[in-house]
């Protein structure tokens, strides 16, 4: 009897009974495990990079805790619910950016921050890193794919408004990341290859024109320094020469935890923020860096799996863009520190010290978890 009773239950009830605690909390176990691994690794490296600064470690740990809570809260919202509020979030985000540009004038120089004394202090451009892909995903998910020219133009306009506001601040690094996150939605949505190749081809004359007509002397100098850091060994070239020496002297196995000389003798600038990978490479060697890259690769693979398995178009586009943007962070940071790319202020995700980027990143993973855990169970069975 009991056997037939089981069969009368709906599929959904069956799933609910099988659902573990994690699933009920809408948490993706694999992602959570990988994130905790990175967090633990981060604290290890930071302890060394900061010169055994326990206070700094506690701050980073608490930022991580706050970020995790935020991630779990975000994961509770259904993607459909998020999509409904995306237009409003976009308008609100743009309004905040305008407010920053206007109020920034009053506050003399602190143009990236909104500061309500005693209440809160935050960077609206950080929100845009999540809102931007969500907006494009929301817009394109209502259209047929691949997007037609008209829809591409509208998407680019939607990207252009906040980006130009961020550029006014000015914050080139964040603006580029926001563009990237929006562009990846278009890519996932099947933007025709001829457009992609065309845009890449158009970049060359634009870059040449910028060089001659737009860039200031000091900006040109920065590009030249990137192309050959030896020309400016006292200025910004110094950072790259030193970080390359730190990485290179680590060898295959590294000098050992807390034994890096470059970072501990103050040769390495920004050793606990943007250049932290150099500390890791010096102390744990090629093996350490490869392990870190492997963990990142697992995270990204999981993100792409979530993308493919997502059931709504909005979810697919959003998940794909967030995952690919995350990879861009990793690539740009490590490429910069190892001298492959010019120096731009992008932290290494989950490893660099800094609460703001940590919370933004974890919010992104909250969205991924929400997309994955709110699928209709019927389809799964």
């Amino acid at each position, binding site marked *: 009897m009991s056997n037939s009773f089981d069969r009368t239950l709906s599929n959904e009830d069956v799933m609910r009974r099988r659902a573990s605690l994690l699933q009920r909390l809408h948490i993706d176990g694999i992602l959570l495990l990988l994130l905790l691994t990175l967090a633990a690794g981060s604290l290890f490296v930071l302890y060394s990079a900061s010169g055994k600064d326990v206070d700094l470690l506690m701050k980073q740990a608490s930022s991580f805790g706050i970020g995790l809570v935020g991630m779990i809260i975000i994961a509770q919202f259904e993607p459909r619910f998020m999509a409904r509020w995306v237009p409003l979030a976009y308008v609100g985000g743009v309004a905040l950016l305008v407010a920053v540009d206007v109020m920034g004038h009053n506050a003399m120089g602190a143009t990236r921050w909104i500061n309500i004394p005693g209440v809160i202090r935050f960077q609206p451009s950080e929100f845009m890193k999540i809102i931007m892909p969500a907006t494009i995903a929301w817009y394109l998910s209502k259209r*047929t*794919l*691949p997007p037609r020219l008209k829809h591409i133009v509208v998407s680019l306009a939607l990207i252009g408004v906040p980006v130009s506001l961020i550029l006014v601040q000015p914050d080139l690094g964040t603006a580029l990341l926001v563009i990237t996150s929006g562009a990846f939605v278009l*890519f*996932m*949505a*099947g933007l025709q290859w001829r457009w992609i190749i065309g845009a890449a081809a158009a970049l060359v004359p634009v870059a040449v024109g910028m060089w001659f007509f737009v860039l200031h002397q000091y900006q040109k100098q920065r590009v030249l320094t990137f192309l050959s850091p030896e020309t*400016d*060994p*006292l*200025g910004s070239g*110094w950072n790259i*020469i030193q970080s*390359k*020496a*730190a*990485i*290179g*002297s*680590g*060898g*295959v196995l590294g000098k050992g935890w807390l034994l890096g*000389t*470059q970072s501990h*003798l*103050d*040769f390495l600038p920004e050793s606990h923020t943007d250049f932290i990978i150099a500390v890791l*490479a010096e102390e744990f*060697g*090629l093996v350490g*860096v*490869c392990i870190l*890259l492997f963990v*990142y*690769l697992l995270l*990204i*693979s999981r993100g*792409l799996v979530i*993308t*493919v398995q997502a059931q709504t*178009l909005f979810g*697919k*586009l959003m998940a*794909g863009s967030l*995952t*690919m943007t995350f*990879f861009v962070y990793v*690539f740009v940071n*490590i*490429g910069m520190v*190892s*001298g*492959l790319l010019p120096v731009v202020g992008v932290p290494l995700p989950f490893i660099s010290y800094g609460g703001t980027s940590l919370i933004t990143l974890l919010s992104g993973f909250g969205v991924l978890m929400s997309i994955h855990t709110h699928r209709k169970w019927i389809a799964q069975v």
Partner: protein
Amino acid sequence: MPQPIRLKDHEKDARLIRGRAIVGAIVVFLLIGVLVSRLYYLQVVQYEYHSTLSENNRVHVQPIPPNRGLIYDRNGVIVADNRPSFSLTLTRERAGDWEKVLDVIVEVLGLPEEDRQLFEKRVRQGRRPFEPVPVLFELSEEQIAKVAINQFRLPGVEVTAQLVRHYPLGEHFAHSVGYVGRINEAELKKLDPVEYSGSHHIGKTGVERFYESQLHGKVGYEEVETNARGRVLRVLNRTDPQPGKDLVLTIDTKLQEAAEKALGGRRGAIVAIQVKTGEVLAMVSQPSFDPNPFVTGISFKAYAELRDSIDQPLFNRVLRGLYPPGSTVKPMMAIAGLDAGVITPSSRVFDPGFYQLPNNTHKYRNWNRYGDGSVNLETALMRSNDTYFYDLAHKLGIDRMHDYMTKFGLGQRVSLDMFEETAGLMPSREWKRGRYRQAWYPGETLILGIGQGYMQTTPLQLAQATTLVANHGKWIRPHLAKTIGGVKPVDENPVPDIVLKDPKYWDYARNGMEMVMHGARGTARKVGNSAAYRIAGKSGTAQVVAIKQGERYDRSKVRERHRDHALFVGFAPAENPEIAVSVLVENGESGSGVAAPVLKAVMDAWLLDENGVLKPEYAPPANEQAQEQ
């Protein structure tokens, strides 16, 4: 062709996105492969190179400061050079407990505790890791020996030879060339950190400050290999610095010294400008000071003495001293009156010894209470008749007066390359409304006509206005640099020339000024009579209102310091102007009696040869001489 209706095809969308995700995954794999191979290259292929860099021998990049450009006077006499000097440097990272090392330095050299605090401040201002910071300059042989025998107690301390700025002519050029000093924290924030990475000094005032960017030069650097103790083993690579550009001044040292001698120890200022070129030939502000102690760091006590001296030696009277111009503005006023058509060369004013505005009983007095009778323009300038100029000012009105005087450079910065020049003040209706919220009163126009009232000018402005009269309104900004790196300084903001309705007006003003010196009743005829050439000049008297706050009350001096300032401006030779000079003697009382002889001495030094004869190149043109005969 009708548009086909597009339906959403979820299967197709999913396939599309799956395809893109696969492309994305491939790109991610490839790029991570790129990162791994980059790290492999750095950590395995180049491991030997990098580990050598970082572990056994540390390679340092050391900046080499450029040699600062030299400064010469117009004849090639060195005014500022760089002298080798031994200084004591401390490298924090190598010193261990560096505060303790400072204690040892102070103990070994037997210096006061005050110096130790100065050293500590200097070390804290060090900028980069492993930078040797100079703490003590100009070591004596004895001090070097003491440091050498105590070297074992002084880790990280070295004696290094550096080039340090030196001013061989000392106080003669303190107010024009200025001096360099140690870079302070405020300057550090504004400086290019790379260019100044090896420099410890920066131009603080004068030409040294104005031409800082060109005098400084470009930094060089060398990569040196050091052992674990920080001793330099060998130089791997060296890029030489580019020395700063040499600067040639317009000033003539001999004339400068002659002018200082002519002032004879009195407080005051002299500016001499070459009329045709705008070059400043002499620039004296007395008393002056020796700039050399400022280079290496002047002691607090010595500085306080200079700063608090009642004679204000640090004060640049030429550029920053503000004085009412007094009667020295009368030639300019005369030109303004002629050009505006309110007077003619022959129009006359009757002077009973005072001037009254219509319907007003207030009497504006002439300096000569008995009056000069009926005066025309020439007599008015010759006698410095106040009544004539009250009348002129009244007819001209404040608005036109302001416009004309502004054209002569009053109330604005006139120089091309002088640091911290003040603009002075040429009042106007708008200025008074803004400053006092009051309307302009006609009486205020009158006293402006004789250079009193709100008007404030610097000796440089008076010299420039006189140059303009001599040069028929051709504007060349006065400048101190003849060439920098062989190139003349360029005036990027030139002032339009003064164009009069009739160029003869310049001659009328010049004639009047000549009569001052050479006329039978000229106010400075005593000086003019002894001149070997013709001078066009004008005296002036600036009233001293009160002693400034903060000055010490000194019974014997107060009376003297209440006396009027004596002013005199002029140019010579009158027919073919070569040099224009303005002289200010503080509390000198009489322009014609005290300042005019100084002016003539300066002109003599420039125009006459050793035998007291006018140099042939300055002789007036032959036809004009014939006319006079």
